[in-house]
Each structure stands twice: as structure tokens, then as C-alpha cells.
């Protein structure tokens, strides 16, 4: 058991997360409170959901920089649907995941069928989708989301009473994250396609020789990512209660950074759900800690940059050391 624990690939990054958490909570005990964790959870749900999709994409050796534009487009469509079609929750979710899936499918087709490198294909779709959305909406906020939907967004799953009479609760949107994580886990771990995703990332030619259909798998992955983005858009809209077409500018970098921080390889084949969730957590905790630790505004970016580089450097050095000291021969 002990050795198994030590063998976990994610160990260094887990340790970094723990160390940083300890430092923050020493500086400010308010960090280690249920309330703070719930706040972190709620404000980073969307990032976490999207990181699941990005993980899958990166496992195939791809990358998707269009996620921010896709979620913007889906949020706008969802908002429109809520205000003009129906405020029914299931219907809303359906609209969102459908439109997300369609956009993901489009990316997948460009990448699988036209063999356009993922970063380029998604750069292209990013310009096109975001350009169209902003042209159509002109960046105007969509306010006036139906109360029914907003009320749904305020619901709590489980509530914990606190001493001062207030009640804390797990936000209802946590369900979306749960669905995303479980679905991703199920696909990656339990389905043949899921193993195919790893196989393509490891050695595409061999995967093809083995009978996998890489094109189909890639299309599936991007479509599924779109599906998750649909969920993320609903969660986001229910939290923010309006749709701002500019809300996600530059968000793709955060998603990618969190996934890579969590140990996924940009070359494909390597990466895990646990690692990704830890990468996301590290990201959130750092951001959360900045204000809690009273770090002055003008130092914050310097600190964040150094922490990102520092933690990944520690991780890297660690890996190199294990690699160098690996036993290759049973010496007499």
C-alpha cells in the first residue's frame, strides 16, 4: 500500500498543492474553512468541467484553443433559448449540449478529416465563432434570464448549518462537474474508445494497425469536449445570471494551463483525471491565496508566474531524478 502510494505519478504535484495550501492557511486561517472551499468550488466549476474535455483532447495529442469561443457561443445560444424559447431546465441543457457538440464536431472534422493540425484548426474556429458571436450580439449582455432558471442556480445540494445561523451548501452546479468527471472517467477507463484515445496518443500508427479508427475517435473526442462545454455553459449561466459575450476572453489559456499543470503531455498519450483535477485545484488555490495572503496587487502576477514555473520545475526535476536513478540492470 505504502509503495503503491509512492508510485503515483501525480505525487509531486499533490505535494506541491499541499505545501502551497499549508503556506496559505498559515498566512490566513480563513483558507482552511469549509466556506472557502465551497467558494472555490463554485467559482471554478466551469474551469474544472472544461478541463475534462481538454484532457481528452490532449490525450490524443491535440489541443483546443477554441474552447473559450465555443462556451461563449453556447452561453449566448442558451441565453437566447432561455429568454425566447423555454426556461425548462432539461430543454435548456439539451440546447446547450447539442450546440456545444455540434461545434466540437466541426473541430473534430477539420482535424480528423482535413488533417489540419489541432492548434491551427481550433485557432481558425476560434476566430470564426467568436467573430460571429460578437458580430451578432455586438457584445451586449443578455440580461433578463428567467427567474425560474436563476432560482435553480441558487439551489444547494447539501447544506451545512454554521454557527452564526447561516447555512453553507454545495452548489447545485456541482452536479454538472460530477457528471463531467464521471462521464470522462467512464469513457477513459471503461470503454474501448477510451483506451483508444490513449492508444492514439501513444502511437497512432499502431492504433490504426490494431483496428482502431483514429479519425472516428478524434471526432468523438472533440464532440464530447463540445458536450462538456455545453454543460459548463449552463453551469456558468446559472451562476452568473446573465450572458456576457466577452466573459471568456483568454479563458482557453487557463484551461490548457491547468491540464498541463496536472501532468498531461502536450504530445499526447499521458495524463489522468486525478492529475487534471489537481492541476485545476492548484490553479484555483493559487488564485484564491493571492488575496487571502494579502499579496499586493502589483506583485500578484509575478507570484503566479513564479509559482507556475516553480512547481512544474520541481515536478520535472523530480521526474528526471527518478529517470536517472532508474535501475536498468540487476547488478551482481
Amino acid at each position, binding site marked *: 500500500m505504502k509503495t503503491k502510494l509512492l508510485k503515483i505519478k501525480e505525487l509531486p504535484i499533490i505535494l506541491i498543492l499541499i505545501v502551497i495550501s499549508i503556506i496559505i492557511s498559515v498566512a490566513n486561517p480563513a483558507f482552511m474553512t469549509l466556506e472557502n472551499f465551497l467558494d472555490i468550488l463554485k467559482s471554478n466549476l466551469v474551469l474544472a468541467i472544461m478541463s475534462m474535455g481538454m484532457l481528452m483532447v490532449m490525450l490524443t495529442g491535440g489541443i483546443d484553443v477554441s474552447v473559450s469561443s465555443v462556451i461563449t457561443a453556447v452561453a449566448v445560444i442558451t441565453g437566447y433559448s432561455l429568454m425566447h424559447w423555454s426556461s425548462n431546465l432539461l430543454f435548456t441543457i439539451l440546447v446547450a449540449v447539442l450546440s456545444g457538440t455540434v461545434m466540437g464536431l466541426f473541430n473534430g472534422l477539420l482535424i480528423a478529416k482535413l488533417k489540419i493540425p489541432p492548434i491551427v484548426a481550433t485557432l481558425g474556429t476560434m476566430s470564426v465563432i467568436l467573430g460571429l458571436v460578437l458580430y451578432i450580439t455586438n457584445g451586449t449582455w443578455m440580461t433578463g434570464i428567467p427567474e425560474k432558471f436563476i432560482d435553480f442556480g441558487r439551489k444547494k445540494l447539501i447544506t451545512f448549518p454554521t454557527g452564526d445561523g447561516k447555512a453553507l451548501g454545495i452548489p447545485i452546479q456541482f452536479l454538472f462537474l460530477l457528471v463531467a468527471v464521471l462521464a470522462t472517467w467512464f469513457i477513459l*477507463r*471503461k*470503454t*474501448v*474508445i*477510451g*483506451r*483508444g484515445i*490513449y*492508444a492514439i*496518443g*501513444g*502511437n497512432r*500508427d*499502431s*492504433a*490504426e*494497425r*490494431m*483496428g*482502431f479508427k483514429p479519425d472516428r475517435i478524434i471526432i468523438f473526442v472533440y464532440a464530447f469536449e463540445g458536450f462538456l462545454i455545453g454543460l459548463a455553459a449552463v453551469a456558468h449561466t446559472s451562476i452568473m445570471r446573465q450572458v456576457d459575450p466577452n466573459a471568456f476572453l483568454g479563458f482557453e489559456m487557463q484551461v490548457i494551463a491547468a491540464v498541463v499543470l496536472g501532468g498531461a503531455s502536450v504530445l499526447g*498519450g*499521458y495524463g489522468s483525471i486525478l492529475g487534471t483535477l489537481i492541476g485545476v485545484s492548484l490553479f484555483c488555490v493559487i488564485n484564491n491565496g493571492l488575496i487571502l495572503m494579502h499579496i499586493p496587487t502589483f506583485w500578484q502576477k509575478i507570484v503566479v508566474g513564479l509559482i507556475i514555473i516553480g512547481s512544474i520545475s520541481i515536478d520535472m526535476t523530480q521526474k528526471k531524478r527518478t529517470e536517472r*536513478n*532508474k*535501475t*536498468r*540492470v*540487476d*547488478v*551482481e
Partner: protein
Amino acid sequence: MGQTLIELKNISKTFPGVKALENIGFSIDSGEIHALIGENGAGKSTLIKILSGVYQPDSGGQIILGGRVVESLTPLEALQSEIAVIYQDFSLFPNLSVMENIALEQSVKNNDNLVDWKAMERISRDALDQLGISLDLNTILGDLSIAKQQLVAIARSLANNARLLILDEPTSSLSKNEVRKLFDIMHSLKNKGMALLFISHKIDELFAISDKFTILRDGKYIGTYGEDELDDEQLISLMVGRKIEYTIYPKNKRTEPLLEVRGFSKKGNFRDINFTLHKGEILGLTGLVGAGRTEVAQAIFGLNPADEGTLLLDGKEIINSTPNDAVKAGFSFVPENRLQEGLVLSKSIEDNISLTMLDALSGKSSLINLKKRKELTRNWMEKMDIRPNIPEMITSKLSGGNQQRVVISKWLATDPKVLIVDEPTNGIDIGAKSGIHQLLRDLAEKGLGIIIISSELPEILAIADRVAVMRRGRIITEFFCENITQEDIMSKAL
């Protein structure tokens, strides 16, 4: 012999500028071990890729499979027709576990939607048990040595219960012992009625195991013969069109020391390695796979620096902490794994050969002299007989043997003092092999010191002056190669 399992008629395959196969036709019966032989680039691997559906043959040919006539196969059809292949490049997944590498194919073949981990474990354990080896099923494949990876590839095809098992040079990085084990397995599979199509460049192996030989030359079908219809010489002359045998070279007298390795140790790799390489000498380094020979060679070359010990070149101490240092000091190193360590596969022959020569090709200006570069490439391509003779050819499209020649060229081009070659004739046909032996001998004559790592003892005995035997990270003994036999060496290595 059993009945015909698969029949090929008129199979041709053309690549841009290369006619790799021309009207090939022969058949394979169940319950036979059928050897496919030919020089490097004869088209063996291509033929196999057609059988397994990776390549589509030119139209006009026929593949008759269990009475069904088709023009071509897809990978899935091939799998479902129970054709399993161990490719020259293994086709494994470095990021997946041993278990999945062995058993995932089953799920794909069965069109499963869900993974049955329990079944996977059972299948892969069975396959490994059949091979008589024990490996941790959850190890990530990339962490294994090449030899173990090859065993995994074999286990995978066993797991497939194939009716036709194709093995493209499966023994190239196995030691004698493991080869013997593999042959036992092949025999028992044959006795169960399976057909095996087997490719190897090692003549003794071919005769040890094959029932039939099909010979290809330059993409053309030469003939199929029973094992009793041919002897080595005939086989070789059919294959290359001339007579060739291992030349046993006269051994050198000792000259002055060139390279001295003193007390090299590295935890988990090797311990207390001492030997001296003389000018003009070829020193063989042998032992079982996993004895640590590659690790020692890499340590000398600065790839895997030793924890302790010293290195003397021409009596002066040097420190090779990176390959860059080593090359500057006059070392060359032909690595054992040409696909991952030897060649930049996506680049041309020219780019690869000139990679080690960039300094020499660019004068003070730092700009590369393109004319000189072309010349250099042409020279080496001729010298090493690299085919096809197109410097711009991307090396991933070369046959395995020709790839190896490119790697050797790039290292000989640097005009080294010490040349370390790790399994240099791996996958090279017998004709070319003797060419390489000749070349190494000539270089030694000129005063070069050469360390050759090889699991093929006849090769060591043929060209080395001296041989050091390694076992579990240590040098056990040294022999002069004049009056010893393979058995003398094996008894020490085990």
C-alpha cells in the same frame, strides 16, 4: 502439412518512385513455419503490411483467404481473419501498460464497447505464461527494455489465437536463450495447426526453424523451397544472387592502448567495469540481453554518465558527461535502437547523414556548404550501398536495413578515434552484414578502436580480436578470440 490457409496471386505494390513488390504469388499452409527471406529492401515488410491490411496493394492482385477472394484487406478484416503480426517496429504503445499492450487488441477485434479489465488480465497473463516469462502487468511499456518490449509484442500475438502469425524479425534484439524459448513456442504453435510466417536475416535461425522458404529479391518472387531442398549457400545465392559467408578475419596483435575504462560504476546499471581498448583493435562486448552492455557503452559516450570511474583516451583522462563531449573527444556511437535513437525519421537521408558533420560542413561563416554536404551524402550512400539512391528520401520510408546503414554512415562520417557499435547488424541482410564487417575491419586496420556489442556470437568471433563477457552489470571475463568457441562464451555469460 495442413491445407492452404492463404494464397497470394499477382500482388504488387508501388510507392512513389519505388516498385516495392511485383507480382508476388505464393501460398501458406496451416501448420507450417514459412520463412520469408530477402535482402534489405526486398519487400518483405511491405508484403506483411499488405497481409495485415496496413497497405492496400495495387489493383489486379488477389488474396485468397479461407476460400474468400479479396483484393485488399483492412486492418480490422485482417484481425478478424485471425492474422496477427509482430511488426519490425513492434507497434506497441509506450504509454499503456503491459496488460493493455497484450490484450487490448482482443477488445477491438471483438468490437467490444466496454473494456473488461479482468479478462484483459487473464488474457495477458496466459500469453506471458505461454512464453514462460513473468512481467508486472501494470508496468508502463515505455519503462521496459527493448528486449522485454519485444517479448510483449510476441505475447500480444499469442493472445490473439491467430491462425496466421507473422513475425517480422522477432529475434533481432533477443539473446540466444530467449530465441530458443521463442522457437519452442513457435514449434508448439505450429503443432497446434497455426501457420507462421517468419522473417529473419539470421541464416542459422532460418534453418533451425523453418519448413519452407520463400525468397524475394528486389520486390520479385524468386521461389518457394522446402527446407530440405536448399543449403545455406544456395539460399544465400538465391537471395542475393552471389555467394557470401562470414569471413573470419585474422586477429590483430596488441598495439598501444587507446581507451582505458577504469572502475566504472553506476548504481543500478553496472559495477567496477575495467577494460582497455587498443588502437586498431575490435573489442567485442557480449552477454545476455540485460547484462548492462548498452548501459556501459552509453556511459562511455556520455549518455548515461557513470557515478564513479575514470576514462583515459590516449593516456589522458577525459570526462564525457554529455554525448557532445564524447563526439568532440573523437567517439562515435551507433545505438541499438535505430528508430528511437539513431534516426530522425521524418528527415531525409541527407539530413541524417550530415547531422553529425555540421561543424565540418560549415566553415568559419557558420553557413553550411551545400555542395560539400551533397558530396558527403553521395559518398556515403555509395559506400554503404544505401537504396534507393535518393538523398532526399525521408528515412522513415527506407527498409529497416537501409535505415541502419544510414545510421552507421552518419557515425563513420565523423572519422572517429573510438567507434562504439551497439548491435550494428541488427536487421541487416547477410550480404550487407559482411559488407559492414569488412568496413569495421578496414577501419580497425587504419588504427581505429572499435567496441562492438552483439548478441550474435558468430559475428563476434568473426570480427573481434578480443571479447569481454558481461553478466549482471559486471565484466566476468575476457577472451582472445582466436581459439575459443561459442560455448566457451555462453558458459560464462549464463
